[in-house]
């Protein structure tokens, strides 16, 4: 069926002719509309259609609309209005953490705050270091993107990054710097920048309004209320993220970059830590087993092979396959893993509660209809034993290949 509207002169004529017997059925019957007081009003008579036995039927699935002659319109994806700042009066610069190459929710909160600070005059600038995987910069509220992907700032390089940020400071003279006060980089980078610029930052800021900011002080028993300084290290949920505008994400460049002075911190890379010893609440990658795991030796082997911390559902713990301190869920540990791989876990609410903050959930399950599969970002349907075995083989092959590549 085509989308173009076709005129039907006969029905138009009937609709105009109030004396025509079919006139009433040609009127577009509004099933609901916004009344004068702003409430939604409904006309139950306009709904439904006559069923086969003459009784009125209402199909609540929304598939059928008797009486209404309106063509079903195909909604295009909602386009949020584009917010354009051509000549910014000032800049608000945000340096997001970009954990795993994407904007974290903490980052998005900061962009929300930046947008309230920028109003309709200023531009929100994001400074992003290194490679990233983010595709939604526009809806996060970024007017300008300064992407610095030079070799010098790859990996852990706080001193070089501070040099770059100092150049940004000289070039844009931002009205405010906003940096997440997080342990994943922002807290350190922000303080280094503050020391370098000689700015006294407001730290652990959780509220900002009317030029005043409130941040936690000391051990958390007190708040420090002060006039908002230029450099602000803000806590998570300091503001609501941008929700209903799109922004340009216009790329800008750093004019002259002078990274001089050798790095004084020499990064020797990550140290292998035993994932079995990482506390579950902190673990980054959890392999969790439930009632659907048939071969527990294989499960432990898979955890070792993948370098994952082990978790379990309550049933697996109750049945004695896993120690009590490994239980994930409402009555166990609330985990914060970035990747949660659930093997043979049905996804009871008590369990799903415990993984509510996990980023990516992968399910291995036999039952494609279970709640864990609905929650999962990736679900593989099949027998746990076979898939775990295949997973081990695959990772093994990869490791072998990796060794060959390195040699």
């Amino acid at each position, binding site marked *: 069926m085509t989308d173009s509207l076709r005129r039907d002169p006969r029905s138009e004529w009937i609709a105009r002719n109030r004396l025509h017997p079919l006139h009433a059925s040609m009127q577009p019957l509004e099933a609901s509309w916004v009344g004068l007081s702003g409430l939604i009003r409904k006309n139950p008579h306009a709904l439904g259609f006559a069923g086969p036995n003459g009784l009125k039927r209402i199909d609540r699935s929304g598939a059928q609309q008797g009486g209404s002659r309106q063509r079903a319109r195909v909604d295009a994806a909602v386009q949020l209005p584009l917010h354009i700042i051509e000549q910014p009066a000032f800049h608000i610069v945000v340096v997001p953490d970009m954990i795993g190459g994407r904007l974290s929710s903490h980052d998005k909160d900061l962009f929300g705050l930046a947008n309230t600070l920028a109003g309709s005059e200023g531009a929100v600038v994001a400074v992003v270091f290194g490679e990233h995987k983010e595709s939604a910069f526009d809806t996060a509220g970024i007017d300008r993107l300064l992407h610095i992907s030079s070799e010098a700032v790859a990996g852990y390089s706080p001193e070089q990054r501070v040099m770059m940020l100092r150049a940004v400071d000289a070039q844009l003279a931002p009205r405010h710097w906003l940096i997440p006060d997080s342990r*994943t980089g922002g807290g350190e980078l922000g303080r280094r920048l*503050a020391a370098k610029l000689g700015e006294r930052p407001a730290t652990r800021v959780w509220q900002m309004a009317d030029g005043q900011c409130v941040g936690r002080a000391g051990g958390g028993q007190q708040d420090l209320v002060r006039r908002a300084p230029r450099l602000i290290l803000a806590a998570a949920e300091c503001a609501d993220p941008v929700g209903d505008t799109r922004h340009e994400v216009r790329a800008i460049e750093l004019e002259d970059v002078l990274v001089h002075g050798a790095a004084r911190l020499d990064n020797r890379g990550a140290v292998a830590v035993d994932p079995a010893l990482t506390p579950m609440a902190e673990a980054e990658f959890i392999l969790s087993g439930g009632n659907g795991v048939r071969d527990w030796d294989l499960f432990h082997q898979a955890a070792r092979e993948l370098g994952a911390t082990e978790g379990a559902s309550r049933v697996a713990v109750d049945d004695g396959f896993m120690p009590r301190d490994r239980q994930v869920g409402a009555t166990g540990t609330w985990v914060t893993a970035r990747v949660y791989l659930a093997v043979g876990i049905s996804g009871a609410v008590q369990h799903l509660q415990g993984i509510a903050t996990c980023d990516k959930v992968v399910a291995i399950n036999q039952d494609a209809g279970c709640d864990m599969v609905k929650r999962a970002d990736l679900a593989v349907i099949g027998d746990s034993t076979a898939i775990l075995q295949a997973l081990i083989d695959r990772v093994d092959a990869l490791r072998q290949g990796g060794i060959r590549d390195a040699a």
Partner: protein
Amino acid sequence: MPHNLLNVITLVSVGAHPVTGRARRAEQDARAVELGLRLAGKELQLLHAGDPQVEALRAYLGMGLAEMTVLQQPPRADVVPALGDYLRDAGAQLVLTGSQAEVGEGSGMLPYLLAEQLDWPLVVGLVEVESVTEGVAQVLQALPRGQRRRLQVRLPFVASVDNAAPEARQSAFGPARRGQLRPQDVAVVEDMLLEEARLQPARPRPKRLKVIKAKTGAERMKAATAKASAGGQVLTDMTPEQGAEAIVTLLRDEKVLR
């Protein structure tokens, strides 16, 4: 292995009990002292800028040290210049601090400002000094989620420790009594912050409400149940190998497979 030749100074501040608010040794600073004791043994020097009359400071001496230097400063002073000058003259090679004070502003800026003033490198989140050879230290840094990173840094440097560092030993009462607090007179720089800022009891943070910007009931329903039915990719009817491949791809994308 204590490096007895290493000149280590730990900066300590007065902490506050999280519930009662009573003055005590600060948790992170005590960990910094512990790390210092492991590195320099009895040779470790303690340094505080503030009031030498504060009894809580003795808790650090109770960890097995005979004395502590106290640079006399009034309550509202900027202690960074005094500490910086002292450290430079004392020939310190490694300066350990906590990462956040438990009373006052607690911005955690002190180690950064000291490093900037002395122009020394700064290691954040130190958990272990693995070795020191020819003036270069190899250290482990704590990352979130129990991860560790190895860094090499030239002496002298400043390092802050956080809660990932080894737990502090108990403080013994006798040594704490017997230890000496040695006051020193130094110049005072006024801290202007509290002119314009004020401290108040912490207000509980408002809980974020889940804002649903849906226009119709169906959309609201969807938003309310979105977590449960957001629906990712579901792979049915494939061999275990294909499934494993898909999982491995995701794990590598997320960089959790090392």
